[in-house]
């Protein structure tokens, strides 16, 4: 029974760590203006969610959680490729652009 309690305690710690990582990523996304660093913060948030999925996969004894993480990884890779392409196109046009400058693209 104590072993079971220990497992559940670690589960909670994994979830708390995931929540903390997600929070740091979201604060970074809101604070930083360099589009590259903002992208890295999005990766932090995706990793936090992945960690949570894997934790639930283990605590519910279900492979489905790990399959979802696999798909999240693939989508993250595709997203990074497209996002970095946009950043390269943007930086070529206006070197040293920050997220504020992209507002001129609207409308």
């Amino acid at each position, binding site marked *: 029974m104590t072993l079971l309690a220990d497992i*559940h305690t670690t*589960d*909670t*710690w*994994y979830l*708390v*760590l995931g*929540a*903390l*990582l*997600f*929070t*740091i990523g*979201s*604060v*970074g996304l*809101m*604070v930083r*203006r*360099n589009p*590259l*660093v903002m992208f*890295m*913060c999005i*990766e*932090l948030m995706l*990793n936090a969610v*992945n*960690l949570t999925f*894997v*934790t639930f996969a283990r*605590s*519910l*004894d*279900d*492979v489905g959680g*790990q*399959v979802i*993480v*696999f798909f999240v*990884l*693939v*989508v*993250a*890779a*595709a*997203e*990074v*490729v*497209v996002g*970095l*392409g*946009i*950043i*390269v*196109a943007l*930086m*070529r*046009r206006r070197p040293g652009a920050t997220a*504020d400058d992209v507002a001129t693209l609207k409308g």
Partner: protein
Amino acid sequence: MFAIAAVIIIAGAVGVVLSANPVHAALSLVATLFGVAVLFVAQHADFLAAVQVIVYAGAIVVLFLFVIMLLGVDRAEDLDTEPLVGQRPAAIAAGIAILAAVLTGFWLNNRDFGGVAIGARSVAGKLSDPAEENVAKLGRLLFTDYLFAFEITSVLLVIAVVAAVVLARRAAGRETLEGEATTDKQVEVVE
């Protein structure tokens, strides 16, 4: 082991947010990704840990570094001035609110169900089945229950590759850095 990995993860994440230099941010990101991979191993997600290291640390961060070097933005930026007054306190307040919301969810779950995750167990397959390796379980599920999602994923990747090529190439015979003509032309292309 959990404590060590957790410290590495949090330190790396804080490093990403606080580094003035994008290269340092990317290297901090590697630390975080490795820490997460360690926790994947600790939770019997061997295949995902390998993929995490290969795809994230190996490919995505290297892509980030390539773009940083290509664009020549590898110099420290000024983080002391705050261009938008009150943005940082607001962002930190929003972050605390997010953290509080998630932790309240955990706390309620912990109180009502003793820390056990609720929901149906082993729907897609048992993770703890010793008859099969972790990779075999994932692979069998990918090509049976999740086959449609898997095929759609391949379409997504092809679209992403085409999009990256279209976005990153220079228009033939034009200097993109100067001239309004280029701008007009590229607006047409986007439309």
